[in-house]
């Protein structure tokens, strides 16, 4: 495996959790709900995935547990914000704090234990192709799931009736309600999907990226995913681009630091954030398009008048 291939692979592994979590949050926000609890749901997915995989020895069972944990955690958010109509921002923040604390408690006995790593794909001949073989045909299953998920979200949002309904709910929930669209039910489903994605992203961290459990191992990736959604102006392909750009710059700066370039390391560490923001701001210059794609009722509580 050449250096080039190795870098390409690490970039994909770093970008995948951001992509998955951001896609989930994209669907949630397109339905008009702002869930700031991505970090919390992600870390819950990471600990649940690691714990189940460690206990059963199956990385796949761990991954399913991660998805369920994220979804269950998002259901709590949904119940609070959609049924009890609490403030979405405050509830989302609380969810993150709760997730970080609860995962640390659950994971206490798993710290330092060896993890179960999800095996990478290996197709004879194809995987051994020069330069791109490993990248295209030799990665872990979650990478392929993340790409399919991107295509799936694009198709769902812009080609299906259900996606149209979801966008309508995010644009104007009062009008949607008056048309007989079940606003709250659609938002519940969107929130659940977002939670499942965040859980999957967390599982990727503890079962693929670094197969072990460390307290607070998401390290702010949930927040980056949230920022990606906004900077990508709620469009799935831009989230893909943003996630990979972020992954590329963070891996690139590590290599640059290793080579001993005379730039303060603090600056290098902040580079991925700066680069992602600058590029996404540049491609979002078309204000009209951005506003068109911004869910108008984002974060606004909905109470049907009965």
């Amino acid at each position, binding site marked *: 495996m050449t250096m080039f291939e190795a870098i390409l692979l690490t970039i994909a592994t770093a970008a995948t959790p951001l992509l998955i979590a951001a896609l989930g949050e994209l669907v949630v926000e397109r339905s008009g709900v702002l869930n700031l609890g991505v970090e919390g749901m992600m870390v819950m997915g990471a600990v649940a995935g690691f714990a189940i995989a460690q206990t059963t020895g199956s990385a796949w069972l761990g991954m399913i547990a991660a998805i369920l944990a994220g979804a269950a955690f998002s259901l709590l958010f949904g119940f609070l914000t959609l049924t009890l109509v609490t403030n979405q921002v405050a509830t989302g923040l609380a969810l993150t704090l709760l997730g970080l604390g609860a995962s640390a408690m659950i994971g206490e006995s798993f710290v330092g234990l060896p993890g179960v790593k999800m095996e990478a794909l290996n197709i004879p001949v194809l995987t051994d192709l020069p330069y791109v073989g490993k990248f295209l045909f030799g990665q872990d299953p979650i990478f392929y799931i993340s790409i399919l998920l991107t295509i799936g979200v694009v198709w769902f949002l812009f080609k299906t009736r259900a996606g149209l309904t979801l*966008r*309508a709910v995010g644009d*104007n929930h009062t*009008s*949607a309600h008056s*048309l*007989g669209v079940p606003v709250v039910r659609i938002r519940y489903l969107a929130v659940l999907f977002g939670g499942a994605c965040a859980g999957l992203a967390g599982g990727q961290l503890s079962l693929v990226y670094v197969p072990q459990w460390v307290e607070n191992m998401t390290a702010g990736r949930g927040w980056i995913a949230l920022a990606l959604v906004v900077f990508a102006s709620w469009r799935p392909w831009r989230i893909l681009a943003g996630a990979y750009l972020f992954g590329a710059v963070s891996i690139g700066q590590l290599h640059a630091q290793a080579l001993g370039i005379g730039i303060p390391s603090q600056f290098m560490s902040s580079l991925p954030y700066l680069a992602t923001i600058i590029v996404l701001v540049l491609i979002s210059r078309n204000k009209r398009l951005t506003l068109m794609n911004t*869910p108008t009722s984002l974060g606004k509580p909905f109470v049907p008048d009965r």
Partner: protein
Amino acid sequence: MTGTTITNGSDKPLLEASKLTKIFGTLKACDEINLAIGTGEIHSLLGENGAGKSTLVKMLFGALQPTSGDIAWKGQKVTVTNPAMGRSLGIGMVFQHFSLFDALTAAENIALSLDERTPLDTIATRAREIGQAYGLPVDPEALVGDLSVGERQRIEIIRCLLQNPDLIILDEPTSVLTPQEADLLFVTLERLRSEGKSILYISHRLEEVRRLCDRATVLRHGKVVGQCDPRSQTAASLARMMVGNDIHVIDRHPAEAAASTQAALLEVRGLSQKPRGPFSVSLHDINLSVRAGEILGIAGVAGNGQGELFEAISGEVLQERPDIIRIRGTDAGRIGISGRRKLGAAFVPEERLGHGAVPDMSLTNNLLLSRHSTDRKVFLTGGALRLVAERSLALATSRIVTQMDVRKSAENPDASALSGGNLQKFLIGRELDRNPSVMIVNQPTWGVDAGAAAHIRQALVDLARSGSAVIVISQDLDELFDISDRIAAMVHGHLSESVPIEAMNRERVGLMMGGVDHSIAPENAGTI
């Protein structure tokens, strides 16, 4: 009525509501309402704001559940639990505040209210077909946020017609149209009637009702107070039924000094502005001047730049050069809102809650917010500490409340607790209390009942006659004809020359609003 073969009232009505009641908390919004709509009739529902019209139709359509009472549809008793069920029964609704989605295309908007099995890719074609058949042209690919209000209404109506309803409910459909656009709508409605469809037509425009409708049911305070054939009534007799007594006639007493001899108090010269958001309008070379003692009325269909003009004059948006806007002879184009207020100007925006007033703040606090800078000496004490002078605030508030006859339920309620008309009276009173020499009001009586509207209009006339310059931006032509000395029209961000009221008539102002009068920039001619 046209010579249709279907007779009204002789056989079973299409829809019959009996003793329909809806109670919100302690308020009886609808009180034992009986209503029968025959097949192939245009039935008008008349009443002031708050009379219960909207609540009633929401119950018929399934958006609200009645507290008690029955609805019979084609002779069968039904319970309409949600709008989807209303639609499947054959009841279509065109809303007053459009229920469209700005970020979606016309075809997507239509698709949302159709049967789930309708394939998405055939809707654009069907929408185009129906639109052509009923004279309602639309572009299915256009984003709704970019469309004019008239075009949006067409989409609403096409959306409704695609469901092939037997009863179409229209809530104040002409309030957003030019007279010419309204005429086109009436042709469509008469055609629908001739096809045997029934229409429930909600309006407070009495001339329209007299011209179009076969029968009218009048509501007041949630009760049916009368049924009649509007064609045998006069506008005045219908108004009396609606309000319960005669409406105050605006007294346009002459100005103390002839306006033409006075200096202009407000001047706008060459105001051009790019659109600031995806759905806002650009302004093109707007010129106007208003003298002491006169009211300039600005007519126009909503969304033609009136809001942007208001923001430019009020100082919410600053201009590039100071001399674009002059208030009392001072170049004010670069001065902010408070600065312009200090020059003697006063502003009442269109949106009451959120723009004109902070909904969750009390009336006294809302008063302080708008006047802390102009009346610092009165409302703030303690020198540099700038403490709030509660007593003088309360005094000023009660003075405004008395002067404008604001009806409120508590001593100092939140702005959002007042009804629309009462809050508007307070907001206008808040500015009048300063005795401004320049006042600009956007939609002063939108959604305000007739009694309060008359009060507000009289107050504006009185202000002008006492020597102030007043601009009233309104979509309500009756209002403009009642109070203006000159009328100009806005279309696509252009402002026409103003025409003295004596030389003005409804047809001419309609042409100006549509951009086909020659007093408007020629490049816009013919683009209604």
